[in-house]
C-alpha cells in the first residue's frame, strides 16, 4: 500500500474523493486500522508533551527581547541629533538606588534634584518634571528623553523616561508626576548602550503590569499634553 497516501489521509491532506477511498480501505483492514490508531495516539502524545511549553509563561528574557522596538524607534532620531550630557544628579541618584522600585529613602536633596519626596511619595522635580510636562517622544530635547506615554489601569497618564544614568516611570497625580519606578543603568553602561538595548527589563515589566490599552501615538501624546495630562 502507498504509505504516503495513508499518512496524508491521517493528516487530512487528501482531497475528499481520495480521503473517502482511503477511509473505506482502512475501515476494511484491521491492520491499517490499528496503525491509524497508533499514529493518532503518537500525535496526541507528541502534542501533550510539547503543548505545555507553549502554555507555560514565557521567560522574562524572551519577553524583554520583544519590547525594545518601539523605544529604539523613538530614540533613533535622538541618537542621530545629539549625545546626552551626563547629569551629575542622575549619577548620584543611581548610585544610591537599588534596582527596583524606590522606597523613598536616600533621595538627594537640593533644588535641582530630579525627584523630591513629599508625605512618603516621590514626585518628579526640576528638569525631570519639566520634561514630563512638556516633552514629546517624537521631539526629544534636553537631557531627559520620554519613552512611551499611556493610560494606566487607574485611568491616569503615565510616561516612561530615560536620563543619563537611569530610566523610570512616572504617573500623573493631580498636577504632579508621581514616581512609580526608577531603575539605575547597569554599571558602566551609558545611555548609548541603553538606547541600543531598549527599555530596561524592570521598567518594561512595570509598564506591562500597569498599562491599560495601547501606548499613545504621536498625535494622542501631543493632545494629552495640550490638555494638561488629564
Amino acid at each position, binding site marked *: 500500500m502507498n*504509505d*504516503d497516501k495513508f*499518512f*496524508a489521509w491521517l*493528516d487530512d*491532506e487528501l482531497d475528499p474523493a481520495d480521503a473517502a477511498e482511503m477511509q473505506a480501505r482502512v475501515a476494511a483492514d484491521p491492520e491499517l486500522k490499528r496503525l491509524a490508531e*497508533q*499514529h493518532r*495516539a*503518537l*500525535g496526541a*502524545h*507528541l*502534542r*501533550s*508533551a*510539547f*503543548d*505545555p*511549553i*507553549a*502554555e*507555560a*509563561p*514565557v*521567560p522574562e*528574557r*524572551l*519577553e524583554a*527581547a*520583544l519590547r525594545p*522596538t*518601539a523605544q529604539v*524607534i*523613538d530614540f533613533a532620531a535622538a541618537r542621530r541629533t545629539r549625545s546626552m550630557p551626563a547629569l551629575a544628579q542622575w549619577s548620584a541618584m543611581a548610585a544610591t538606588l537599588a534596582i527596583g522600585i524606590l522606597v523613598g529613602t536616600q533621595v538627594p536633596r537640593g533644588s535641582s534634584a530630579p525627584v523630591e519626596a513629599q508625605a512618603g511619595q516621590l514626585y518628579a522635580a526640576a528638569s525631570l518634571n519639566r520634561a514630563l510636562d512638556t516633552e514629546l517622544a517624537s521631539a526629544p530635547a534636553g537631557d531627559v528623553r520620554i519613552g*512611551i506615554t499611556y493610560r494606566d489601569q487607574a485611568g491616569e497618564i503615565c510616561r516612561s523616561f530615560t536620563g543619563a544614568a537611569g530610566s523610570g516611570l512616572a504617573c500623573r497625580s493631580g498636577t504632579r508626576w508621581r514616581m512609580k519606578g526608577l531603575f539605575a543603568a547597569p554599571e558602566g553602561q551609558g545611555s548609548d548602550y541603553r538606547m541600543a538595548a531598549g527599555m530596561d527589563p524592570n521598567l518594561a515589566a512595570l509598564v506591562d503590569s500597569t498599562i491599560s490599552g*495601547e*501606548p499613545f*501615538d*504621536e498625535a494622542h501624546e501631543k493632545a494629552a499634553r495640550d490638555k494638561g495630562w488629564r
Partner: protein
Amino acid sequence: MDQASPFDDQLAALLPRLRRFAHALSRDAADADDLTQAAIERALRSKAQWQPGTRLDSWCYRIMRNLWIDTARARSRKATHEAPEEEGLGVGEDPRPGIEAAVDLHRVMDAMSRLPDEQREVVALILVEGFGYREVSEMLGLPIGTVSSRLVRGRTALLAMVGEQ
C-alpha cells in the same frame, strides 16, 4: 509606533509557539530559549523584509529553523562529546510543572532527539505545530513529496521508540 505595533503584537503572540518549536528542534531547554531569543531578534531586525498579508508564523518559523541549522553546523564542528561552553552559565528550566510531566517530555524528547534532523523538523512542524504539508514544503523550500516521505520515516521511527513504552 503605530505601524510597528501590529507586527510586534503578532510576534509577541507567536512567542509561545516559537518556543515550543525551538524545544523540538534543539532538544535542550537552555538551547531552545537561546534559539527563541535569537529568532526574535532576527525577526525584529528583518521586519522590513516581511510582507504584510503573508503568514508571519511561517516566516518566523523559517527564521528560527535557519538559525538553528547555522547553530547546529557550528556546534558539530566542535567536539561533539564535550559539554557546550554555556552549560555552566544557566541550566534550562523545564517549563512544565510536576515530575510526571517532565518525565513524559523527556521520553518524547529523547525519542525526537534520536530522529535525524531533517525528519525531526518535519515531524515537529506538522505533528506538533499543526502546519500543512504545503506550508512546510514552502517554509523549508522542499518538494512536497520530500516533506511527506520524511514525515513518514520520522513518525514510523518515533512510533517504534515511543509506542512500545
